[in-house]
């Protein structure tokens, strides 16, 4: 099944489409194109070289469990593109000194989100949350006078959202989304079962009054995580390690569509190939050339190879796509390539619930609050999604940290508790740990920008250089999110015995959400890189998929919108073939 079925008479003939990047966008584009144009010759070029099978998944789990840090990239650290820095992934550690291993950050603020360069891309490590954007996310300028509008509205994307939900396999409860995100149909499977503790928190919050007139409505977060067997993958087994790796494969990752494209649809997959240059056609009727380095070849002088294609789809991500564009010296008539880099800034408010909620059993989160994702306040500050965690204090404190706090007096270098009393202290605290998190909206800014660094990787390819600054609108989103979280926790203190709430004052500290967006934005030719279909304004054979094309970042995790946009762009490209 692995031989390309669409082999041409002339092996040197240009491919119809070369897709650069085997993440969710590239893999979905490949499947869609190959399905609607069965005779087309399609190739995916991928910088990583990992097998995407059960044995590799098990190896990732082993690597994770023996990792001393258990960081997000830890399961994938042994892949040679990372370890030998042929095509390094960024680590997403929000610290200049550590992050600088890949990003060359010039500040003044930290861009704190990373990604994985591998077959399947960052979906290996994602949580799997897949809410849709709300309708007003597409018309921020018209409705609230900030940011920019998308070139089309929610209604245009709705059918593609529904298709994307079926492709990825989204669990969700449609009836909970009435009035938030209109839907033409149901989810392909029921929403994830919330945990024992989730239900305690939901019950406690059921009596809270609206905050600033907005109801605190708890909804089941749509997730690309199976609540029942779906297309050959099992239901969630509750490994409680969605980030950074799902041992069961019940969480969608893009290896699903990479394997489908290669094994069932005749798409060729070429791995360990790091694209270094896209060359436009030499003349009318000529193909594009994709130059790449094959890092499995030992002799650097022999590593450079090339492909030709009538159409090139760039599906790297919002960091690597503009990097490749700039490296290639492609036209940039709007001057927007690499600009408008965005993320969602997340922050946690933690505390102890009045009774055990027993975290670390089941998905890391199942419930959230999506009513603060829209409202007139968006004229003044960014909106936000809220998550009710099922993973203790999340990034604010691990069970291991709690253990140390009861075991060790670091000031006096003495043992505090051992034996059963230590067990009891740890159990009493950790089982009551709860986080409520916000993930806030950021406006596009042309000064938040990806350019080329002087630093290079093992292949001599420049690292991305990132300039990044939080604007006041985005900072106010963090502050307002803190205010709403604080009032929710106050209710839990008043009615459910909650204690130890932290932080009591807004700190404006944030984590990255891993949502790289906005550097190849969609819009008209004067102000954007691609048109409403993802087609380059300057180079008509180049198409861009992924969250790089987002004009604004919206108020939801981007992957479902990435998937929907990709299907839409693939349809436009199929029509052009």
């Amino acid at each position, binding site marked *: 099944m692995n031989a390309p079925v669409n082999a041409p008479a002339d092996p040197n003939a240009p491919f119809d489409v070369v897709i650069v990047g085997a993440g969710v966008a590239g893999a979905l584009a490949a499947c869609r194109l190959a399905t609607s144009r069965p005779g087309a010759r399609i190739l995916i070029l991928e910088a990583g070289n990992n097998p995407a099978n059960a044995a590799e998944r098990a190896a990732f*789990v*082993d690597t*994770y*469990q*023996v*990792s*001393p*840090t*258990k960081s997000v990239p830890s399961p994938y650290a042994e892949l040679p593109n990372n370890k030998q820095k042929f095509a390094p992934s960024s680590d997403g550690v929000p610290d200049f000194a550590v992050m600088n291993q890949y990003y060359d950050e010039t500040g003044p603020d930290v861009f704190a989100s990373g990604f994985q360069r591998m077959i399947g891309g960052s979906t290996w490590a994602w949580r799997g949350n897949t809410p849709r954007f709300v309708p007003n996310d597409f018309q921020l300028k018209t409705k609230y006078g900030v940011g920019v509008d998308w070139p089309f509205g929610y209604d245009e994307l709705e059918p593609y959202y529904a298709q994307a939900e079926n492709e990825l396999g989204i669990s969700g409860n449609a009836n909970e989304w009435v009035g938030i995100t209109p839907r033409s149909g149901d989810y392909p499977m029921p929403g994830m*079962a*919330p*945990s*024992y503790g989730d*239900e305690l928190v939901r019950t406690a919050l059921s009596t809270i009054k609206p905050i600033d007139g907005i109801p605190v409505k708890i909804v089941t977060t749509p997730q690309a995580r199976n*609540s*029942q067997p779906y297309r050959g993958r099992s*239901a*969630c*087994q*509750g*490994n*409680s*390690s969605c980030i950074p*790796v799902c*041992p*069961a494969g019940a969480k969608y990752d893009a290896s699903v569509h990479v394997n489908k494209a290669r094994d069932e649809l005749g798409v060729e997959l070429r791995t360990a190939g790091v694209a270094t240059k896209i060359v436009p056609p030499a003349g009318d009727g000529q193909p594009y050339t994709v130059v790449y380095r094959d890092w499995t070849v030992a002799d650097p002088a022999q590593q450079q190879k090339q492909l030709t294609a009538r159409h090139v789809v760039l599906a790297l991500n919002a960091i690597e796509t503009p990097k490749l564009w700039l490296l290639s010296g492609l036209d940039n008539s709007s001057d927007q390539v690499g600009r408008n880099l965005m993320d969602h800034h997340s922050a946690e408010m933690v505390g102890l619930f009045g009774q*055990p909620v*027993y*975290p*670390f*059993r*089941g*998905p890391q989160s199942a419930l959230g609050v999506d009513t603060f994702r829209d409202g007139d306040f968006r004229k003044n500050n960014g909106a936000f999604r809220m998550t009710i965690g*099922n993973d203790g204090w999340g990034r604010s404190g691990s*069970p*291991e940290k709690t*253990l*140390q706090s009861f*075991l*060790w007096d670091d000031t006096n*270098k*003495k*043992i505090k508790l*051992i*034996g*059963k*009393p*230590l*067990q009891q202290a*740890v*159990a009493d605290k*950790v*089982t009551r740990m709860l986080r409520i998190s916000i993930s806030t909206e950021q406006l596009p800014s042309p000064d938040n920008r990806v350019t080329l660094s002087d630093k290079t990787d093992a292949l001599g390819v420049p690292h991305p250089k990132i300039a990044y600054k939080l604007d006041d609108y985005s900072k106010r989103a963090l502050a307002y999110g803190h205010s709403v979280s604080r009032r929710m926790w106050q209710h839990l203190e008043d009615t459910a015995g909650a204690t130890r709430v932290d932080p009591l004052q807004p700190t404006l500290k944030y984590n990255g959400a891993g949502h790289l967006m906005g550097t190849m934005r969609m819009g008209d030719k004067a102000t954007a890189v691609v048109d409403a279909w993802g087609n380059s304004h300057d180079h008509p054979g180049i198409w861009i998929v992924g969250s790089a094309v987002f004009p604004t970042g919206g108020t939801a995790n981007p992957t479902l919108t990435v998937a929907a946009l990709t299907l839409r762009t693939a349809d436009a490209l199929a029509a052009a073939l």
Partner: protein
Amino acid sequence: MTDATDFLALSELLTGETDLDEQLAEAYRGRLAAGYAQDLAALLTAYRAAASQGNPLGALTTAVNADPKLARVTRETVTVWYTGQFTKPDETPDAPATPQQYQAGLIWQVIKAHPLATAPVPPAASGYGYWTQHP
């Protein structure tokens, strides 16, 4: 009594458990000894003295807190049993030697959960939705 059996008994006193795995104990004794050889020997001596006292846990706590080096190796011994990992004298982590050592960490059973990335299996409550129930 040998160091091996005494380390196992010491570990049970420190953790409050009664049925710790002998092979795991040997693996942890070896890992700790690589960085804390003298301190570990001194801890075993302190344990032997405390074990005959009326309140071994209290006696041992008093003894180890009289010497920062003993306190430190006590901390790391408890930590490796709870997490499969400890901190070496140079403050770098000594990661679990195997996934099984990580999975054996006591902290997960103490908080009535399971090691991350190792879902519970029968006869424990397991499979889709086990998390909806009180543990």
